[in-house]
């Protein structure tokens, strides 16, 4: 990280200067709101933990697995198929479609299944939004291997030989309306492909269904987010509105009680981009291919479901 960047941005998650779009601060008016936002951005920035892969603690994960196994088995009736498609060792980029709002039910179900299948000894990291990692009370996520989403952290994890779970759709996809539950929507984000090519690792698609039924997600609230400068201050493109427990109307989704929707996850055969698209693959072709493969699998999972929530 260059010195200039370090002084310009309070980000501590390893962003290279070139990664982020040029920062546009909220209006430089001396208004109270503007000052409050800048202050908030500073606080969040300072709270983002520096990615230290060593913070992942296998013994801690092992001790927590029974609790998460209980939630996963009894509340979400989780079912994870095809973990045998993940190469037994070596770095791998797990690419998932993201559902369920900020409570991330499918991430929990998948993490439990992955950790028991391959053992807690296998290094496994997950990329998460800055805001998730800076929230007080969620520091335990770091012991599970969650690091702030940035290309730098992703490179670090993969070059250490770990499995890395990314959700290219991020906050954009996770807050899609419930009626778009059966759609994979990365919003055109192709960073994961560049990452896989650069690190020369296979992509294993992880397709999940059920998360979007844990609440009634109404809208992403993109215009609202822009209006409040959330995209510039907190890297938040959305301010979602949903109907969920216990709030009934939930604006922003700072936590809710997920409905016990059945969550089914299918892990698909690994995609080796260079083997399928030649030594210098076209990103658009690769993107369309990965998305099509995942959409097919999601369609099949959707066809299996008879009722919302019940599964």
């Amino acid at each position, binding site marked *: 990280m260059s010195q200039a960047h370090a002084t310009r941005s309070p980000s501590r998650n390893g962003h290279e200067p070139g990664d982020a779009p040029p920062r546009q601060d909220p209006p430089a008016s001396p208004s109270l709101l503007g000052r409050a936002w800048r202050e908030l951005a500073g606080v969040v920035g300072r709270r983002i933990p520096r990615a230290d892969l060593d913070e992942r603690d296998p013994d801690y994960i*092992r*001790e*927590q*697995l*029974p*609790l998460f*196994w*209980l939630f*996963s*088995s*009894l509340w*979400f*009736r*989780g*079912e*994870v198929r095809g*973990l*045998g498609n993940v190469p037994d060792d070596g770095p791998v980029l797990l690419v998932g479609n993201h559902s369920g709002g900020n409570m991330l039910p499918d991430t929990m*179900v998948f993490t*439990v*299944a992955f950790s*028991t*299948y391959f*053992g807690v*000894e296998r290094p496994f990291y997950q990329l998460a939004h800055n805001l998730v990692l800076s929230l007080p009370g969620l520091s335990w996520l770091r012991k599970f291997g969650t690091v702030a989403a940035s290309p730098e952290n992703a490179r670090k994890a993969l070059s250490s030989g770990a499995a890395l779970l990314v959700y290219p759709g991020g906050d954009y996809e996770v807050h899609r309306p419930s009626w778009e539950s059966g759609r994979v929507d990365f919003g055109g984000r192709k960073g994961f492909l560049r990452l896989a090519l650069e690190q020369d690792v296979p992509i294993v698609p992880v397709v999940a269904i059920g998360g979007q039924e844990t609440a009634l997600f109404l809208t992403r609230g993109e215009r609202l987010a822009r209006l409040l400068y959330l995209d510039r201050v907190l890297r938040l493109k959305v301010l979602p509105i949903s109907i969920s427990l216990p709030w009934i109307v939930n604006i922003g989704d700072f936590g809710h009680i997920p409905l016990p929707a059945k969550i089914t996850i299918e892990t698909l055969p690994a995609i080796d981009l260079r083997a399928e698209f030649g030594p210098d693959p076209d990103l658009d072709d690769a993107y369309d291919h990965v998305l099509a493969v995942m959409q097919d699998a999601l369609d099949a999972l959707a066809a299996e479901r008879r009722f919302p929530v019940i599964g």
Partner: protein
Amino acid sequence: MRVGADTVLAAPIEDVWAIVTDPERVLGYMSGITRWEVLSDRPTGLGARYRMLFRVGAAEVGGLVEVVEFDEPCDFAWTSVTGLDHRGRWRLRTAPGGRTRVELRLAYVVAGAGLSGWVAERIAAPMVAAHVRRSLAQLGRLVEHEQLRAAARRRAARA
């Protein structure tokens, strides 16, 4: 937590022993087991190592296991090296009429997890017990069908 079940099969003890100690055949009758892969040079016998997985609830648990008792043709036991702490045992004894009493035991501990571990152990018990019972039933069908086929071959050879 220990779960187990037993049954009596109409087959000689050696025939049952040959099946339960053959890693190639485990997936054919063991319910809930999704992987039983040989990792050691020797496929079976004392010290043989397997990578095994067992579906319980929303997860496949297991890990590396090692055979710690190989007392032909009576006792075959393994214990976990990595993954979920557990032991398993096939206990075979001769029964009257050329039959064999077969017992399968699985004992597991959810380590160091406090209340959630205690609860998880008990919630998992009926799931594991169901797999154990189904495994014995499937083993029974497999063993007894092989006995019938062998008898049919003998009759055909005589005729």
